[in-house]
């Protein structure tokens, strides 16, 4: 009878967790959309997967490699939101179940409310796009492993030690850092009996000696790296170290569970109303603090860029205030403006800084810093250099990113296109096979591979033909700077609108007015009737600076742009002569600036030139 009642209670508890899980699934799928992490690996740290033998070999030769290999494969399913949601929820539920099982094994009774804490923690990490699938699976596996250990009835200390110490080594090898959560529970379990207290001590101190032993015996890595790997690596989107704090929190939680479980049970009258407390609090917290608005939009921008939905991207970007945009967002917005031919009209509406191009800005530091930064952003950069016609630059960037970030399909396919352009279809095949062997072939590499067999130059492929059409032919020395490359490619292909838009952005952001004036015959879209507004504003500044009219060719500066500029000068109260001084010392705001700060001119070139920033408040 008692057993039946226990089973009933357990069923009810599991049903509550299941309801909580259903709500969490809907929340993750509808409001979080984990597939955004797939399109933003630079931010979310979603790993790549390599189907080649060298990749597997590299994984299996490190601590925690088997778990990494599995989670890297599973992570590729993030391309499909429903699959990602289901996997995230399954792993969070597995962690909850693991806590429940381990606590029950240790206490000899159920401690049902405890499992909601790690469940919520997992959801909070997922809701903030911190891709820690390997850690979530690892925590669950470690908890189930320790619950098996706690349920083991063997009482002879020597036998327990002979089995458990090698098993701890094995668990550590398979899972790596996530195995730490099992340490306090195992130590509490062994510490309950006098005969196994020595073993308990050995297990409790295993995070100190086991990594050093493994490093010495089998995996020769720098010791500092071995200990550092006991905690997760930094995630791009995590500005506050939440990921590492979460891992430490899980260990602390293990200590807490152990301490609670080994205390003798206090007979208490059951209070059914409280049974819903933990699930309700979990759901409430999930909705209240489970996601961050800015992070959500940021990830959405990356996803829309990956899907080439430029209009949608610009609409989504308006949800962020200029001061909320970071380099990643700036880059995506500029990409969308360039693709839609709106650089000349809206560049300063979004307040984009020079770093939006991710290059050519001395503030980013020297060559090595720029290289590293571009490498970190490489998955995001994807194929933009290739689309700009800078084939060698694209190859350079893609090689660096493939080497340091891994074989993401988003890198492999453009790299294959580079190789086709260079007359190396066999190399392209190797890269396309790598992409096609990823779970589900998210980049659509298999059809390209088939097409390549019939046509080694993919001449009938419209994307490839477009890339060939705009390819830069002339070799110039450029020292990692984009401007000479864009000038070269636009001189070879004046009709290459994407490159012209990027060049315009560079000229405006870098205040290169002489160059802009020189490029006036080709820079604006010839299909336009009027000059883009920002070009007009730049030309007005040039007129003020040189004291003579700029030769405009077939173009004119609209009267409304002139009168707006005149209004600005009037608002500053400096007159045209005073304006010359202001424009000659860009980014050094005059005393009179207070009059126009936050003014209707904050989306103009001259405002940007004077203050070094722009943007319309939202």
């Amino acid at each position, binding site marked *: 009878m008692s057993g039946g009642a226990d089973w009933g209670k357990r069923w009810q508890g599991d049903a509550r967790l299941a309801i909580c899980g259903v709500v969490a699934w809907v929340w993750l799928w509808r409001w979080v959309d984990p597939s955004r992490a797939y399109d933003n690996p630079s931010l979310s740290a979603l790993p790549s997967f390599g189907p080649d033998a060298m990749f597997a070999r590299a994984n299996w030769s490190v601590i925690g490699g088997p778990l990494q290999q599995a989670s890297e494969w599973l992570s590729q399913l993030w391309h499909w939101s429903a699959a990602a949601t289901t996997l995230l929820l399954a792993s969070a539920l597995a962690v909850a179940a693991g806590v429940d099982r381990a606590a029950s094994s240790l206490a000899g009774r159920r401690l049902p409310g405890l499992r909601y804490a790690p469940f919520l923690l997992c959801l909070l990490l997922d809701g903030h796009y911190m891709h820690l699938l390997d850690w979530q699976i690892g925590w669950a596996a470690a908890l189930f492993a320790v619950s098996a250990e706690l349920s083991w009835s063997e009482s002879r200390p020597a036998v327990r030690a002979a089995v458990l110490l090698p098993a701890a080594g094995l668990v550590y090898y398979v899972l790596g850092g996530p195995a730490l959560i099992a340490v306090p529970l195992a130590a509490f379990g062994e510490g309950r009996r006098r005969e196994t207290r020595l073993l308990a001590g050995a297990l409790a101190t295993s995070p100190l000696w086991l990594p050093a032993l493994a490093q010495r015996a089998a995996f020769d890595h720098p010791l500092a790296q071995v200990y550092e790997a006991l905690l997760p690596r930094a995630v791009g989107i995590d500005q506050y170290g939440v990921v590492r704090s979460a891992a430490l929190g899980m260990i602390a939680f293990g200590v807490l569970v152990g301490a609670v479980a080994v205390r003798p049970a206090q007979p208490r009258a059951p209070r059914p109303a409280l049974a819903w407390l933990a699930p309700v609090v979990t759901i409430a917290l999930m909705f209240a603090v489970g996601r961050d608005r800015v992070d959500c939009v940021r990830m959405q921008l990356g996803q829309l860029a990956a899907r080439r939905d430029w209009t949608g991207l610009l609409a989504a970007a308006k949800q962020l205030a200029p001061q909320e945009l970071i380099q990643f967002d700036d880059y995506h917005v500029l990409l969308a403006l360039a693709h839609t031919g709106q650089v000349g009209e809206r560049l300063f509406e979004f307040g984009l800084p020079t770093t939006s191009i991710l290059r050519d800005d001395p503030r980013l530091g020297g060559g090595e810093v720029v290289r590293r930064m571009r490498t970190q952003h490489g998955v995001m950069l994807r194929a933009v250099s290739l689309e700009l016609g800078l084939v060698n630059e694209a190859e*350079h960037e893609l090689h660096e990113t493939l*080497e340091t970030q891994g074989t993401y399909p988003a890198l492999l396919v453009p790299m294959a296109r580079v190789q086709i352009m260079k007359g*190396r279809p066999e190399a392209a095949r190797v890269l396309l096979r790598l992409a096609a062997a990823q779970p589900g072939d998210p980049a659509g590499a298999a059809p390209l591979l088939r097409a390549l067999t019939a046509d080694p130059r993919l001449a009938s492929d419209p994307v490839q033909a477009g890339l060939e059409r705009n390819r830069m032919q002339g*070799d110039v020395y450029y020292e990692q700077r984009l401007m000479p490359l864009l000038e070269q490619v636009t001189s070879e292909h004046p009709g290459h609108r994407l490159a012209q838009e990027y060049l315009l952005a560079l000229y405006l952001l870098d205040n290169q007015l002489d160059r802009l004036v020189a490029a006036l015959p080709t820079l604006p879209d010839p299909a336009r009737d009027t000059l883009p507004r920002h070009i007009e504003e730049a030309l007005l500044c040039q007129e003020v600076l040189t004291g003579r009219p700029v030769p405009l060719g077939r173009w004119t500066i609209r009267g409304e742009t002139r009168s707006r500029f005149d209004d600005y000068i009037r608002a500053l109260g400096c007159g045209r002569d005073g304006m010359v001084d202001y424009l000659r010392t860009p980014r050094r705001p005059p005393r009179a600036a207070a009059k126009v700060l936050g003014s209707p001119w904050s989306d103009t070139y001259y405002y940007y030139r004077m203050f070094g920033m722009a943007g319309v408040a939202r």
Partner: protein
Amino acid sequence: MNRLRGLLTRGVWPSVVAIVLVLISMRPGPRPSGPVTELGQAPRLMPALEGVVLAPNIAAPGLRVNEPGTAWYVTLRGARGQVAASGRRQDLRFAPRLWQRLLATNRGAKLTLTVYVRRGGTWTRYAPVDLSVAAEPVDRYLVYRLLTPLYNLARDVGIYERDLTGYRERVVMRGRQTGGCVNCHSFWQGSGQRFTLGVRSSTFGGRTLLVNGRSVVPLKQPIGYGSWHPDGRIAVYSSNQVRQFFHAAGEETRDVFDLSSGLTVFDAGTRSFSTTPELSAPDYLYTYPCWAPDGKTLYFARARRTWPGGELIPPPGYDQVRYNLMRIAYDPCNGAWGKAEVLLSGETAKRSYVFPRVSPDGRWLLYTACDYGCFPIHRPNSDLGLIDLRSGQAQPVPINSDRADTWHSWSSNGRWVVFASKRADGLFTKLYLSYFDTDGRLHPPLLLPQSRADYYDMFWHSYNVPEFVTQPVRASAGQLGRAARSRHAAPAPLPPELAQQAPSMR
């Protein structure tokens, strides 16, 4: 129900499954039967085998028949025996033991490979492919570096040792052991027991590991390309200020050159470096040293430096730098150097001649020629060249491809040459083994064999600096890693003439 449960618990089902799997695996492969149509053309094979000379101890290559069909059958027949492979997929494998027996019993003899393909229920036989087995074996081990076609940043570069009689590839040392890069390795007399290994790490600094059996001594001085004197007491290394830049257009994006370089002599006894003006004049660039087997001549590549000091990148005239093949006499008794002389003038031929490697009998010199500079792997027109040192005449090298061929090395018996080539795809460098006969002819090469024909399908790594060794490396990866990270590395400064040219990037 109980009976079913009993069957499961007694383990009957696992046994049944195991038996079925064994029976499936024992199912005989398809064999030609009925009428066979003759086709006059040779089959397309991967790796290519036409005219190839196999080493009698080489492992069987996984073979792909690139001909459409539903079943494939291949026989390799010699005067003494034959071996066959068949399957319902194009990728076939010969049984290793039968392969080894066939090669061993047909040493120095011809072999014929015949391919049959089933299409629409009938078998087609392709024109036979002729190949042969050499009498002389290849050295058992091959040590090389494996890396992706990286530019500046490296995640994990490794030195590996491959047993050529099988497929086992063992890690000698990986870059991740120091969070850096492992590069030039130089063996004494082709022995894995004694060698030096260059290591570069931003955390632990540059090191040279001096390995002797299981003893590893770290020196606080990175080195470049090297060659041990046959007596094992000294070695000569290059010390290069390597720089890289990028072309905005053209086939090869990377360009690498030595801003300055010189040669330095390492004394293994005193663990110190020295040089001589003939090997380190500041107006010249020196690289790729190689000792003649008698130890009385050092070969190297030298070019006139066309730019002043400083860090101009690219320096003026970098694409006009042509290396000459040089040699200089050396007296092992007193350590005296002679005068350097030009063996082959790159300046005259408007080609750059680098990477001299002398055959173990001292008669042949294999080198690489490219249009300029000293990094032939980045020059698509790089080719192997051969000189008969006895007559001084250049010999034809028929195995060159229209893509980069370089990084060559001789086997200890002088009958085999391994080299790296981009011929397969233009991007990923692979290794090829070519037989060198007594008349000085290189025969069509064999791609480094792998157990599976699809091994290279997704292999996006490149091989470089292959070196044959007769005995395996005894020091473990752990020993090498610990030595590379050691704080107790012995200082071994370069001579002042070369101190500015400490290896900087590889």
